[in-house]
């Protein structure tokens, strides 16, 4: 193929943003319901989860944002050879601006020097877009909306850490992640999901950690030692009694997902991307045939 592929996914991207902002994924709803069922009836924890579930239903029915903090939109774009990433970037930006005008997104991009809100969610490195060329004949885009409250309690550890008694091993990782949960208390809108990265540099640590949040809660880590660690930390974190909103209770985290990246010999980072219960993620798939979009689906 010699000609660059011309396509326009702007309206489909707008729908992707709408879905992400207003429809909580089913696996998250199931986990919240499970949490509610295990809390003491009538307790603040149970009431909080009941309110959350009611809100989730209303947001879906009314097509309004689940949470007013619609966060940083983070797009991971997989595309075949021949598709212009500059073109896709422009379409993503246009869709984000349109979604803001329609109140699916709050204007969230603030100039760090002047304090001025751009008003349309466009700005320097905003939204976040990562491009990945692949061999498949389709465009696959994931979007997550990462809110500020949970971003503020996300944290990166440098092991070894004497205060935590955390060495450069999986037990050290466990101690660091549990420290992050303790420090977050309810401030990241518990019950949260923990995206964890072991290794990488300081930058890739957060990228890998946030990518873990795209995984379904019931998936199983292909690396058995990580699968076991995810399970262990999940059980430990829910023993802490922090509970929904930090009101106290049994439901503190809904999932723990751990990924790895190669590291420098000198560095051993453990990065915890805390995500609130409103773990908003959505997917768009556009099938291509002879440079034309033949079918678009969402998940």
């Amino acid at each position, binding site marked *: 193929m010699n000609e660059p592929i011309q396509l326009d996914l702007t309206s489909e991207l707008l729908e992707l943003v709408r879905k992400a902002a207003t429809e909580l994924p089913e696996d998250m709803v199931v986990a919240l319901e499970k949490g509610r069922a295990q809390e003491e009836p009538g307790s603040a924890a149970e009431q909080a989860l009941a309110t959350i579930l009611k809100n989730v239903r209303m947001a879906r029915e009314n097509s309004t*944002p689940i949470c*007013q903090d619609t966060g940083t939109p983070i797009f991971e774009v997989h595309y075949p050879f021949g598709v212009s990433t500059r073109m896709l970037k422009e379409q993503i930006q246009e869709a984000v601006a349109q979604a803001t005008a329609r109140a699916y997104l709050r204007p969230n991009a603030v100039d760090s020097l002047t304090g001025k809100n751009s008003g349309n969610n466009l700005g320097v490195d905003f939204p976040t877009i990562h491009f990945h060329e692949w061999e498949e004949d389709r465009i696959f885009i994931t979007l997550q909306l990462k809110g500020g409250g949970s971003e503020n309690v996300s944290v990166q550890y440098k092991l070894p850490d004497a205060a935590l008694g955390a060495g450069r091993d999986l037990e050290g990782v466990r101690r660091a992640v549990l*420290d992050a949960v303790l420090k977050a208390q309810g401030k990241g*809108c518990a019950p949260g999901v923990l995206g964890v990265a072991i290794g990488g540099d300081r930058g890739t640590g957060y990228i890998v950690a946030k990518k873990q949040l795209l995984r379904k809660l019931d998936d199983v880590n292909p690396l058995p030692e990580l699968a076991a660690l995810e399970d262990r930390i999940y059980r430990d974190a829910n023993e802490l009694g922090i509970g929904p909103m930090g009101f106290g209770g049994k439901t503190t985290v809904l999932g723990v997902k751990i990924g790895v990246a190669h590291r420098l010999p000198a560095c051993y980072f453990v990065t915890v991307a805390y995500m609130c219960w409103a773990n908003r993620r959505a997917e768009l798939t556009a099938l291509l045939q002879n440079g034309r979009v033949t079918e678009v689906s969402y998940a």
Partner: protein
Amino acid sequence: MHKLTVPISDEDIRALHVGDTVYLNGVIVTGRDAAHKYMIEHFIRHEPTDPEDIALHDKLKALLDGGVIYHCGPVVKKREDGSWTFVAAGPTTSIREEVYEADVIRHFNLKGVIGKGGMGKNTLKACMEQPAVYFHAIGGAATLIAQSVKEVLDVYKLDFGVPEAMWVIRVEDFPVVVTMDSHGNSIHEKVQAESEARLRALLG
């Protein structure tokens, strides 16, 4: 379950205890990071001198005397007639206002602060003295809470941007839980201490 209407009396505040569910009614004002910094720098550290500041200060004094400030940066829609409506309006994390809140509570005679995640010792002390309480709204329950916002009466400092502006809203049966009361109790302090102890036990 308590039902309270702004302005709230000291007696009603003293009757509240941590864990109580409250339905709030009346006119409240949103304010978060930029608004708190502004109020401290323009009203509280020294008397306002700029005519615009004086006018806004007078309006806020009237609205917040016995009133409630809400840590919230809403999603809003402007109607064709120019009026505003709240689309999504859950609480934002309150602890960022800890350095300002005690002074704001005292200056305006606030009876309550709505937010999420709880606040620290300075705010708790101001709550005991004032008296006032910290009302915890459910974080992320933005569409549901927006249903409680019946009317947007005014907006100040819109130049701060939509999330940071001070929105004057009339609410009906806004559901909140008292997590810091005027008797020195804080659910947040209690849960923090208990969870620390549990983690120590887990790690052996």
